[in-house]
């Protein structure tokens, strides 16, 4: 059984997809939450000066998306065939782009922030969610008919963007995505994690 240590800040942000997938896969790991003040001292010792990090049996992997793909493969959530894996990948990228657009807004100057926020809420997010809704099945799965990392990515990124105070359209408008979210929340490992995880502001 490999020893797994996951390090991120004490929040969900772009690190939470990985924690949720570890939970779905029933994979035990050390959930290290770094206080911002400790980060500066650590930064240069990390592969690329960024969090999150995944340490597995002496190897350190960085880049949240690469970590996500690795965990998905290990947890059996990556997709059964190579082409299914590619479909899972593309959905993960699409879902993540929603979070990235939202996160970029917060470093903008105030005047620009309001304009970009409006554009995201009224145009970009509805358009992307519409495409994603078409890609999900009526049963609430993006690939095949069981949970994959694609479903988890949609749920966690949607939730994280909401907590960045972006007013996303309700999933009620996107029935397939609503089912995806329900399937994610119903997974026993994930349900337990959602109930027990530390409550954080982001």
């Amino acid at each position, binding site marked *: 059984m490999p020893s797994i240590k996951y390090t991120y800040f004490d929040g969900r942000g772009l690190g939470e997809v990985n924690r949720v997938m570890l939970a779905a896969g029933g994979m035990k790991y050390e959930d290290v939450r770094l206080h911002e003040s400790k980060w500066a001292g650590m930064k240069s010792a990390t592969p690329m000066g960024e969090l999150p990090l995944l340490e597995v049996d002496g190897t350190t992997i960085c*880049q949240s998306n*690469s970590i996500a*793909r690795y965990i998905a493969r*290990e947890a059996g959530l990556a997709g059964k065939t190579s*082409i299914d894996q590619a479909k899972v990948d593309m959905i993960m990228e699409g879902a993540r782009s929603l979070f990235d657009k939202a996160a970029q807004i917060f470093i903008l100057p105030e005047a620009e922030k309001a304009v970009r926020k409006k554009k995201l809420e009224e145009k970009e997010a509805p358009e*992307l969610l519409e495409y994603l809704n078409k890609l999900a099945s009526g049963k609430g799965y993006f690939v095949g008919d069981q949970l994959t990392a694609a479903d988890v990515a949609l749920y966690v990124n949607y939730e994280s963007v909401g907590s960045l105070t972006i007013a996303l359209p309700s999933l009620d408008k996107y029935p397939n995505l609503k089912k995806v979210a329900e399937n994610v929340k119903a997974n026993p490992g994930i349900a337990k994690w959602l109930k027990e995880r530390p409550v954080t502001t982001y």
Partner: protein
Amino acid sequence: MAPKYKLTYFDVRARGEPTRLLFAAAGVEYEDVRITFDQWPAHKDSTPMGVLPILEVDGITLSQSMSIARFIARETGLDGKTRLERAQADAFVDELEELIPKMAGVVVFAKDEKDKEEKSKELDKLIAERLGKCEKLSGSDGHLVGNSLLWCDLVLFNIAHNIEEVYKAGTMQDYPKLTKVCDTVKANPRIAKWMAERPAGMFDF
């Protein structure tokens, strides 16, 4: 018999070229469809996410350039030798990927000289940051990860080619290990053949 794979993109290198380089390196045939900006609006809604490139295979359409490249890397055995190597290769790609759209912002889409100058300053910082990190982590023998050509080397090469040939020649000399990776790619006979034969594209990017 029609090739198994059909790649559709604009007539440029940019986000489509890593996949084309992969097909070349692996010696795998594919249909290399290039559409114009005029043709694009009619295509858009039939794509999974309203963007190019797309890859059609076995009746399925994939989108997202790096997901497509990773898929072809896997199909051709160029994704990594072990599970952890694959994750390490992925990490390099994640770190480098943004350089293509940011560079396009300067060399293709800049509105005027002032815009170009401002965006160049940001791009230079981004290049230094991303290539700096990759230089630190790169292998020393001409490969980013392990000891064989992987897709991350091709992703780097596509970017470095644009930096040197289109944006700012001389940049790569600050990154000797990465330069060695790119030289290894260039020396690959199949890659060299593709580069000699590939379409010039509607613009040089």
